[in-house]
Every structure is written in structure tokens, then in C-alpha cells.
């Protein structure tokens, strides 16, 4: 699988869409930073650390565009088929693709937050003492957003493996995220709300919008994300191993 990962990293480094998305994220981060500086925004850096990575629809759109090009594009170009035809096992190919997909998501999702945190810190200070508690807080927020976004990434990855078309991946990914988000924020039934708590949709919304009184405890986020991601990746692998390729 090592050689497949090397090839995937090479592809990623040469992919125009990925570079364009990274540039877009950077530009949005800088633009937001400018708004912060000009607008007299008084929040300190730690405020953004607390909500980093939770821009639900923005992240869903970025991940969908990335998955459409990076995964569904392989079906459209028939390059998955070409790799299998000369001996790559479907399992190894899926593993390499998924690993590089998740690694590629990290800069894509966090550049914007890192720039914003830097601008707020320079402008208004960090807002917390540099001690062990702050370190634990930062690590827990970073882990929280990685877990939630990877679960969202796994959902969109599954959509890409099922749809096998760029347009359908963007449609299902971004459209599906919007619908899920709407269903979640409009849910008032207490029993169903309890169930929503196990989803990344609720978990991200609880932090970002403050609509929910209580953010979901970290252990629940960790367990539900890991189980959810594993199940979604398993389903995508099964779909990939069973499908006929053109």
C-alpha cells in the first residue's frame, strides 16, 4: 500500500482543484481577518479556538468539492479501473485513497481557522494564560473538530463511491449536508434530539451556533465519530469492492 500512498500524494500535489481549494480557504481566511481588523472585533484568539472547524455548511461544501474531484473523478477518468487492471487490489487502493483524502482534508479545513486565530491574537491578544489547562483545551478543540469533520468527510466519501460522478458527489454532499443541518436545527422532539446528539451535525452546531444549551461531552463525540467513520468507510469499501468498473 506504501507505493499507492506515494502515488496518491504525488497526484494530490499536482491536482489543480485541490490547490484552488487551498488558495480559496487562504483567501477567505485573510478576507475574514481584514474584516476583523477593520470592524473592531473585540474577541481574543481563544474565542476562535473554541469554535474552530465547526463552520458546518462551509466545510461540507469544501469537502464535497474535494471528494468530487479526488474520488469521483477517478471513476469519471476510469483511472481506478486502470490501476486495478495492472494489479492494485481494491482494498489497498481504497485504503490509500482514504488515507490521503483525510490527510488532504486537514489543511483544507483548518487554514481558514489558523489565519483567523492568528489575526485575532495579534489584534486582541490570545485571551488565555499559556499553561497546561489552555494546552488541554486547545488539544481537545482540535481533536473535536478533526473527529466531527472526518465523520462528515466519511459521509461524503461514501457518497462519492456510491455516486461515482463529480456532479452527483457535490449535489449529494453539499445538498445532503444542508438538509441534515436544517432537520437538526428544527428538531424539537426531546427523544429525537437525544438521538441527534450522536451525530456530527448536532455536535458541530452545538458549538458553533450556541443554539443548544449544552455542548455534547467529548467522550460521546469521540465514540460516535469513531464508530460512525468506521461504519461509513466500511460501507464505502464494500461498495467499491463489489462494483463493476467501466
Amino acid at each position, binding site marked *: 500500500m506504501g*507505493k499507492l500512498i*506515494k502515488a496518491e500524494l504525488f497526484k494530490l500535489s499536482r491536482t489543480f*482543484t485541490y490547490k484552488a481549494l487551498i488558495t480559496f480557504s487562504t483567501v477567505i481566511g485573510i478576507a475574514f481577518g481584514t474584516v476583523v481588523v477593520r470592524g473592531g472585533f473585540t474577541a481574543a484568539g481563544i474565542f476562535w479556538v473554541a469554535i474552530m472547524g465547526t463552520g458546518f455548511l462551509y466545510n461540507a461544501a469544501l469537502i464535497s468539492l474535494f471528494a468530487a474531484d479526488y474520488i469521483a473523478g477517478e471513476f469519471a477518468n*476510469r483511472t481506478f*479501473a486502470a490501476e*486495478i*487492471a495492472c*494489479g492494485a487490489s481494491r482494498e489497498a487502493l481504497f485504503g490509500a485513497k482514504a488515507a490521503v483524502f483525510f490527510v488532504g482534508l486537514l489543511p483544507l479545513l483548518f487554514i481558514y481557522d489558523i489565519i483567523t486565530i492568528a489575526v485575532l491574537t495579534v489584534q486582541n491578544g490570545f485571551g488565555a494564560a499559556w499553561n497546561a489547562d489552555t494546552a488541554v483545551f486547545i488539544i481537545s478543540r482540535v481533536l473535536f473538530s478533526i473527529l466531527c469533520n472526518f465523520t462528515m468527510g466519511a459521509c461524503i466519501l461514501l457518497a462519492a463511491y456510491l455516486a461515482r460522478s463529480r456532479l452527483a458527489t457535490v449535489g449529494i454532499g453539499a445538498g445532503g449536508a444542508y438538509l441534515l443541518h436544517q432537520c437538526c436545527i428544527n428538531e424539537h422532539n426531546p427523544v429525537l434530539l437525544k438521538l441527534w446528539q450522536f451525530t456530527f451535525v448536532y455536535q458541530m452546531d452545538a458549538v458553533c451556533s450556541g443554539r443548544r444549551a449544552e455542548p455534547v461531552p467529548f467522550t460521546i463525540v469521540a465514540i460516535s465519530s469513531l464508530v460512525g467513520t468506521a461504519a461509513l468507510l466500511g460501507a464505502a469499501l464494500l461498495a467499491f469492492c463489489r462494483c463493476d*468498473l467501466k
Partner: protein
Amino acid sequence: MDERAAETIFKAENVKKKYRRLQLSSGQWKTNYALDGINMEIRRGDIYGLVGGNGAGKTTLMRILAGLAAPTEGTIELFGESDPKKLHIQRRRINGIIETPALNPALTAWENLEVCRLQQGLADDGRVEEALSLAGLAPRDIEGVKVRNFSLGMKQRLGIAKALLGRPELLFFDEPLNGLDPEGIWDFGALIGRLKESGVTVLISSHLLRELSLLATCYGFVCKGKMTGQITARKLEEKGGDLEAYYLSQVQKSSGGMD
């Protein structure tokens, strides 16, 4: 086919491929056998010409050989391996093009081949340049050009270069002459000649029977998902050497007409 004493490298036994499709008019599932019990054998060193009409099942057979589709029934054997879970290991010794070359249009020719080289874990020993030159792509024509801007024939040539990169023992080409200009067709013939000399086995499907008859050392005739006959080029020569006439007689035979 007994005069072919060499080792069997690909064998299909009673291979069937069934597709089901929902017919909207009747609301019923319709079953279609793309392959209906194919038996065939390719021996080392063969230049095997696969001949058959539209929809006969040639592409489906190649997709099964390449691992892109699984047979509904029957078995295939590649370099002596028939365990479906281990076939992919033997597929490292094959490569080819099915219908149109599979390329990443957003990358250049060199980048496409580099991805392929990394995937297969091949040494960086100048083989990318060698494959490009074997396929007749001049560096000055392709330098820095994205594949999306290639002509059909250039894409076909790049597909051939990609197939040759890992120096496979068995190459498969489905309609390789599509989109090639007369010079390209001649170059392809010369390339197959060179591969034949170096002992590479090639499976080619084509509707261009005259061109195919200049290359192939044996033929298999496919009709409606069945192999209606296999013959060596030498035996065909003894029977008059007219591939087109022989193919038409096979078609007649399979549709129950006079031999």
C-alpha cells in the same frame, strides 16, 4: 490449436456475465448475458485477435480479464492462478487499454506516467521516457501540455505508453486502432511486431480485420457471448487466409446458417 505448445497464460472456462435491467415499459427485470459460457486460452507469445460483432462480448471479456468486473459464473485463470482473491497479484504482470485510454486529463503526459510508475513501484530508470518514445510521442509535442488538450490519437498513444510502462508479459488492447491516423496504425503494427519478437503476449480486439490479420498469430471468434471458434493464423492460411470470409462463416454458423 494444438500446434501452440507454449504455456497457457490466460484461460477462461465457461465464463458467463449476466446483467439485469429493469424494463420500464413492462416493469419487469430483463436478463441479458453479455458472456454466455466463454471458453478460451491464450498461450505465451500469442498475438491473439479477438473478433466479433458489436455487442458480442469482447469488451466484457477484457474487463473480466482486467478485474473490472467479476464473472457471474465460470472461472478465469491467469498465469496459473485461479483464486479470485489472489488474481490481482498476477495482474501485476498484465496491462492494457479497454475501449479508450484511462488518463487523468488534468495532468501532463509525464505526470500521468509518473503516477503509474509510483503506483506499480517501478524503478525510476528512464522507463517513462522509453515508454513515451515507444508509443511515438515526441517530447517537444507533449512538454507541459495537459492531457485534456491532447488529440484523440495522442491520448491513444499515451494510453499505449502507460500500458507498456511496467513491461508487462500480457498486454490487452480493446479497439486500439480507434482514433489513430494511418501512420499511427502503422506504428502500432510495428510496435506489436517488436513486442512479439521480445516474447510479449498480446490480446487485441478489433473490427479492422485487414489490419488485425497482419498482426495476429491466432484468432478467437465471439458471437452473442459465446466463443464460436479459435484458429491459428497458420491454419487460417491453409484454409485460404481470408479472415473476413472465415469470420462471416463463423457468424453464419452461430446463427444456425450454412457453414
